């Protein structure tokens, strides 16, 4: 299942992927054991380098960021029924104990996107892959949220909102055209659906005066409905075009209503009363029986994010799953 990850420059895309990988490592090795993941070699090389750096208190370097164009993981979720079977049966391949999902994130350069937006033609294979995405993860950088409308961050956010809105409409248009094409050729496809997920990145940098102006309290609520309302209150102000295009998908025949909201933060070292000099350093957790020496980040949110895909996995249209199966087979048997 292709998944598009959209984020402005320096919005924390690589850090997000690094933290997602950290969360996968931790969650996949927990006692509960109902989640597994696998990463292809190319993705593993990059992600393990990011992971190592983070365990060494460093944020991803610019060189590493440049190496990323596509990252994929295969998520495996233990099926509910199989989970109740004895261990030795669960381990058998024929039992198919895990439902799997391929999570691919593409990092597309701003120029590629701009070229596509201006021309409307997806000439590059990466953009073509991107348009096939069923899940669109939009990173919204909280450090750029300001209520001062004459500042550069405000204008940057306005521009980012326009870019994301345009991309979402491109996704919707592509899905609708594909749907109509399949329908015309006699196939009876499921109505097109895109699952947007918003990640409020650098949430710890969200300024108190912004929250106060918007009438929001500090801290992200835990209740699902309250989370949605809280996140949407922020997004309605800072990315209104994106939000309204998501809502409007249904009248254009592509549902995008089921948006999910997550937040991401990673604690950085600060010295009392002093501004940090140079690159900030990541705070790491102490060693405990369940692990340690890892970045101190919003782990629960990342677990929620991983679990979110469990629900989506059950709703992916058959034609997409078939296409993936076909793609996987052609990779195994190149001739």
């Amino acid at each position, binding site marked *: 299942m292709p998944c598009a990850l959209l984020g402005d420059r320096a919005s924390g895309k690589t850090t997000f992927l690094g933290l997602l990988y950290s969360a996968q490592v931790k969650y996949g090795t927990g006692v509960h054991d109902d989640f597994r993941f696998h990463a292809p070699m190319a993705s593993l090389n990059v992600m393990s380098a990011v992971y190592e750096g983070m365990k060494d208190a460093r944020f991803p370097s610019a060189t590493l960021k440049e190496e990323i164009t596509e990252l994929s993981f295969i998520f495996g979720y233990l099926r509910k029924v199989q989970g109740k079977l004895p261990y030795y049966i669960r381990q058998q391949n024929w039992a198919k104990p895990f439902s799997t999902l391929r999570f691919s994130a593409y990092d597309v350069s701003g120029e590629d996107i701009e070229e596509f937006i201006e021309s409307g033609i997806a000439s590059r294979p990466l953009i073509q892959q991107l348009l096939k995405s069923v899940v669109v993860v939009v990173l919204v950088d909280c450090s750029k949220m300001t209520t001062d409308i004459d500042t550069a961050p405000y204008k940057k956010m*306005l521009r980012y909102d326009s870019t994301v809105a345009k991309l979402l409409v491109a996704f919707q248009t592509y899905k609708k055209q594909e749907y109509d094409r399949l329908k015309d050729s006699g196939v009876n496809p499921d109505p097109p659906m895109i699952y947007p997920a918003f990640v409020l990145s650098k949430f710890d940098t969200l300024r108190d005066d912004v929250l106060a102006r918007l009438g929001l309290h500090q801290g992200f609520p835990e209740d699902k409905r309250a989370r949605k309302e809280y996140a949407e209150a922020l997004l309605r102000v800072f990315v209104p075009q994106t939000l309204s295009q998501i809502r409007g998908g249904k009248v254009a*025949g592509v549902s995008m209503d089921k948006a999910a909201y997550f937040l991401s933060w990673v604690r950085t070292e600060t010295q009392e009363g002093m501004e940090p000099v140079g690159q900030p350093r990541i705070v790491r957790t102490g060693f405990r029986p369940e692990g340690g020496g890892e970045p101190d980040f919003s782990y629960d949110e990342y677990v929620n994010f991983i679990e979110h895909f469990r629900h989506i996995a059950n709703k992916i249209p058959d034609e997409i799953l078939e296409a993936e199966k076909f793609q996987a087979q052609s990779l195994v048997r190149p001739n």
Partner: protein
Amino acid sequence: MLHVALIGDRGSGKTTFLGLLYATLVRSGSDSADDLRFHTTFESLEEVTTLFQQMMSGGFPDAAVKEGLHELSFTLGLRKAKHGFLPRLGSRKWNADAGTSLQFTMPGSLGEERPGFLQGSTIGTGPWRDVLDADAIILLADSANLAPKGDPSSPGPMATYDGQVDALLAAIQRWRSRSGHEVLHPIFLLSKFDSVKAEVLKAMNLEADPPGPAEVAARAAYAGTLLSPNLPRTLATVQGGRGGRMRFDKPTYFFSWVRTETKDSSASEKIRLRRIDGGGWEPDYSRDEYLGLLECLADIAAKTKD
């Protein structure tokens, strides 16, 4: 699809109108509880999002946007409040059938471009061709140019524009004398209504604020009083009803304004932004008028479908 032609003189606020219309859509369709949904076509987005950015930063449309923006297309879904037993039952869901496709065409300024069919040509080409086939026509009247009833022998400031619009309407009637839509829905939009001169209102014995959207007759009378000395030929044609095969529907009237501010005397005028519920901003403009216009267009679309 409902084709709407946007006609106005140079500097009458055509691009600003489209920007405010888009701002209305964005603001009114971003909450799950909102009764409006819209989806802009990919082709329209590039220009209109740039326009939105400019206006949300307090700027009026620049020359590049004015040059590039000739069309705005979107699908609109509106949910009207129902009365009686079980209001809204079954009406909460949105789907593609609930949407109306609208296409706004803005071919240029009448004062600057003389479409071929106004110069005697029988062939319509380019964006002006779309005007000939439009379902509805929005005629902008720059309120800053409105004059009180004066000497009938001397032409008023809008006389040339009046003549051009009248000629355009006559050309549309000719074009549809044998085929095409039989009805054209005229909509008058009094733009820059905050710039209407106080003496004009006083001379015509009118209040500063027009009657609300619900007071249809009073509103029509108010707008008619202002427009009759300024666009007499256009009004006569439109109110004349039928001209050959094609007929004009009853005209509707809307008022557009956006508040401005200047930070110092040397700087150019900027759009004043106002805070909205929930903490965001929007241009300080006549939002209710734009919502009324969208409803009016949705009604026309429904009639056209029938």
